[in-house]
């Protein structure tokens, strides 16, 4: 009961803190709008490697020659897979596109299945494919080709806003987390921590109250954003249940991180500064600022350490990648793991400080 009292008090304090509210709601909305606009005009980048899955449905000498040419062409990183496996890889965002060689009324044709979040790259890919498959010297070893491009995943049209939305939601959740990391320290610097400790409640109750406040703020904040996205931007999730599961996992992850951050710092300024710096670093690494697709390969691999990446992955899965329950489980498990680990570390620090 006392934990609920503390949580409600903290939410009331949050509601009266305009700066904190901006980080929880205002900034994510701005981000969704700006980033959405930027995404739709995303420029291509010729120096990048395209990660492709190749599917050969014809299996003739010509088709094999064509795929071999693709595999050896500079700028392509390829692998072979069955049609279904290729589709899944692209749908999950693990590959940029699949290239399927198929029979179009007796002629060889290419079907290009691209990741809808990477429109800019896909355009560059089409151009690069054309360079490989239509020889410039005219002495065509390869027959002329038709290239059809389709988007993999949702059948309905997703706006750029929808594609930017998971990252925006993550910014809102990070805003809540940062606010509550500061509220931990504020309790100490304000001296109210002394009253909490002199009250007939245990340290665990205080901790539970704080954690509950952070969790509720995360849920309320993302709730508002999700409803706004749906009502004002027409962003509809593939599975609302998956959205809820993702948001809850991310919120729990951030509750843990918040507890840890709040225990690490001594002053409000230090926690606000270090907290935001940490979160922004995780956000950058996790693709909430620059999409993963635009990162060099080594950085994309490094992004696995950022819970933000897993958060975005879960939300994208829920919004437009049509993740199955099992596919969603992966990122959610990582988020929960990070949350539990950092919460435990925060508890340990609190116990040490009390000694």
């Amino acid at each position, binding site marked *: 009961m006392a934990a609920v009292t503390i949580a409600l*008090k903290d939410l009331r304090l949050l509601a009266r803190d305009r700066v904190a509210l901006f980080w929880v709601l205002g900034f994510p909305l701005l981000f969704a709008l700006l980033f959405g606009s930027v995404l739709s005009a995303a420029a291509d980048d010729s120096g990048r490697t395209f990660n492709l899955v190749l599917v050969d449905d014809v299996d003739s000498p010509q088709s094999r020659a064509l795929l071999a040419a693709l595999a050896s062409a500079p700028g392509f990183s390829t692998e072979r897979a069955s049609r279904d496996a290729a589709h899944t890889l692209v749908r999950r965002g693990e590959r940029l596109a699949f290239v399927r060689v198929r029979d179009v009324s007796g002629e060889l044709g290419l079907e290009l299945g691209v990741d809808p979040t990477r429109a800019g790259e896909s355009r560059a890919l089409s151009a690069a494919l054309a360079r490989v498959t239509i020889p410039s010297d005219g002495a065509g070893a390869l027959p002329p080709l038709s290239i059809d491009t389709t988007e993999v995943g949702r059948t309905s049209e997703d706006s750029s806003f929808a594609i930017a939305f998971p990252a925006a939601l993550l910014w809102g959740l990070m805003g809540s987390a940062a606010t509550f990391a500061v509220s931990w320290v504020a309790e100490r610097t*304000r001296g109210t921590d002394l009253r909490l400790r*002199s*009250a007939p409640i245990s340290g665990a109750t205080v901790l539970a109250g704080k954690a509950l406040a952070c969790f509720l703020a995360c849920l309320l904040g993302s709730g508002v954003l999700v409803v706004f996205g749906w009502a004002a931007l027409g962003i509809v999730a593939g599975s609302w249940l998956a959205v809820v599961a993702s948001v809850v996992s991310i919120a729990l992850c951030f509750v843990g991180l918040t507890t840890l951050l709040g225990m690490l710092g001594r002053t409000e300024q230090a926690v606000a500064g270090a907290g935001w710096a940490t979160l922004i670093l995780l956000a950058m690494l996790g693709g909430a600022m620059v999409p993963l697709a635009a990162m060099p390969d080594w950085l994309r691999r490094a992004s696995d350490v950022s819970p933000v990446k897993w958060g975005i992955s879960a939300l994208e899965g829920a919004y437009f990648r049509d993740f199955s329950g099992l596919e969603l489980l992966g990122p959610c498990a990582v988020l929960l793991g990070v949350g539990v680990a950092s919460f435990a570390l925060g508890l340990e620090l609190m116990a040490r400080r009390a000694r």
Partner: protein
Amino acid sequence: MSNRRPEVAAPWSSAGLLPNATAILRPGDTAPVLLQVRDVTQRYGAARALDGLSLAVRRGETLGLLGPNGAGKTTLMHLMAGVLAPTGGTVLLDGRGSPSSPATRRRIGIAPQDLALYTELTAEENLRFFARLYGLRGRALSLAVERALALAELTARRHHRVHTFSGGMQRRLNLACAVVHGPDLVLLDEPTVGVDPQSRGHVFDSLERLKALGHTLVYSTHYMEEAERLCDRIAVIDHGRLLACGTLHELVRRHGGGHRVRARLTRHPDDVSSGTIVGDEQEWVLPDAAQATELALKLGSSASSLAVRPPDLETVFFTLTGRSLRD
């Protein structure tokens, strides 16, 4: 705050105001011990904030902790409130409960030396929050909040946020938050510190009302006038040790030293011994008021200035520590 009198009159005119307030006892040696501090030591690294200090707080009394900054008053308060666990020794409420247990803490309230309030909440919201932490709900909660607001003379400002309050008002609210749950023992750590003299008067009014209600108070200060005015007994503390404890009268009698007569003489009277030279004055210390008066009369005709100072807490402190309370 010119309207404060009428605002207070109504709720405080009836008896038995705070839920757990005991009947007004004249504290004397007969009142039972409410809080026993036995041989407590508090170390911070190598330094000792408290060094084998023992003290008893009797039910219904106001005990003053008098000592300069750094004496260990706040540390002692925190031990009494259960916020700190002593490195050595024990603190017991009613001979049984240690303040480290929540059940015992329920009966204690502390007004910390540094303001401990949520400045973005209103006065009432602060009080409601702290009262809830002590398990108060519903009507009992509302009633407790009303009483605390009245005690602090903040009823008219109840819906205002604390950051709009003056220093004195915040001090009063800090006090009200300590008593809102009706504790048996109220710990007030320098409740008038950092407040201008006029607001200090207001804070002091609240303290006197609290005392009049029969609460047991422990009150730390480094202002001796406050200790003299409010406290039934005074404990003099320095360097984490208890130097003396007793009523003002007892302390002055035992440790006050003599009556001091100071004069700037134009001519030395024949039948007067020469005193100690202090600047351009001479000083004599005499064992009682009668002898001091007699000397003053003799000096009267040959002095350009003359003062007689009876022993007080200041001289008690000086005798005990060799230092002045205010450095």
